[in-house]
């Protein structure tokens, strides 16, 4: 688990892209997770 502020918005974009490939996320899931993390940042 990580706190949203532990990464910047740009870093979260990279991390969630990695997450998308590893966890077989759909494009919609990818987008929503990035949005959530940026809003929580």
């Amino acid at each position, binding site marked *: 688990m990580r706190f949203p502020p532990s990464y910047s918005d740009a870093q979260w974009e*990279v991390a969630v892209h990695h997450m998308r490939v590893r966890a077989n996320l759909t494009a919609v899931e990818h987008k929503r997770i990035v949005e959530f993390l940026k809003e929580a940042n």
Partner: protein
Amino acid sequence: MKIQILLAAVFLLTWVGVVYADDELPDDRYVSREEYEKLKSDFESVVESLKAELQDLKKGLSTEQAQKDKTIEALRTDVETMKQQRAPAVADLQAELQSVRELAEQSVAGSSKFLIAGYGTAGFTDREGKDSTFSASVNPLFLWKLGDNILFESELEFEVEKEDVGEAETHVGLEYANVSIILNDYVTVGAGKFLTPFAIFSERLHPTWINKLPDFPLPYGSHRIAPMSSVGVFVRGGISVKSTKFNYAFYASNGPTLFTEDPAKAGSLDFKDFEDLNNNKATGGRVGFLPIPEIEVAYSFQFGRSDPEEFGQDVAILLQALDFSYVRYLESVGGILDIRVEWIWSNVEDAVFDPNGTEGFGPLTFDNDRHGGWVQVAYRPSGDSNELIRNLEFVSRWDYLDLPNDAPEDLEERQRWTWGINYWIYPSTVFKIAYQLDDRVGEEDANALLLQLATGF
């Protein structure tokens, strides 16, 4: 002001008119010269009085205005003084802002984005029949997002090792390094060395700060029957269907090869066949289904052939696995329940090992089928009001491995029960303590105390 004077005059005249109208007037209704002069004199004295009053008002107003002007001037002076006093601080702030702006501009490396993450581990193991030992390792993870759809990912492992007296060294390993490209919403392709999408442990659970116990389940231990990583190409993605979801991952890789000469390993698979020893490639994949977001069930397979050099036999290898995951916060238990189940079957075609007897254990043939799995339940009371209790996690795992009885290796069957308590010092830092009952058939039992401190960064 003129209007006011006029109104006053009219009022006065009206008043005089009324007064005199009430008096007895001469019958002829004419005003005498004397009366006229008196009226005029009265009127002029009233006008003079009004003028004096007006003069006083004007004087008062000009005095008040002068005071206001004085106050404004004083304020202006104060502001100027403050500006002069703050000027150095403002200049410093502007300089600092400029340096921050320059730093931010320097940090922008074109359109690519880079992230270093990873995890570090310190451990202690005290196992029966072996010397207790501390251990340490670090696994940096490098991620480059080269564009909207391209990602390069790589993980290294640095671990202290000691082969023998005077032979301490640091082990360096390339866990994975691959490039992936998102083709569309549902398809991603990639190539390189990647964590094998076979069951769930290797891809999703093996990092020490994610793995809930200090060691790996038996199918991924020293008598491994499942791959951790592969070198090849892959295609993968996910598709939502109403409220459910499917995911898939298929790959072609160098595949495992067969140990043939070492009697302690003959018949088992070498999954570190990263530079292929033959033209036979393994193909495999995993298909998962999530009826609800908290539950996933999946089937994995890998098929390949192996014909080790000088072995003279070509054997088929089929690996299959089923896995199940359930992770959910339950109000009824006030915490997160995490249940994982994996079962793996390894079927290797029969072969004759050490056919000439030169290795000292053949000729030997046996039914080369293996299977094993693990069931793990973890509970974290994350809804508790007490922070100390909220950060605790209780874990229990049963794992099992069944090996061919007629194989030359000593171990035939192994079963373990492991109970652990974790304390989450930070959301990505955990201290684990666990005790393990290790029941072996063909070897001495080896219960163990395991401690580990793991942090994700």
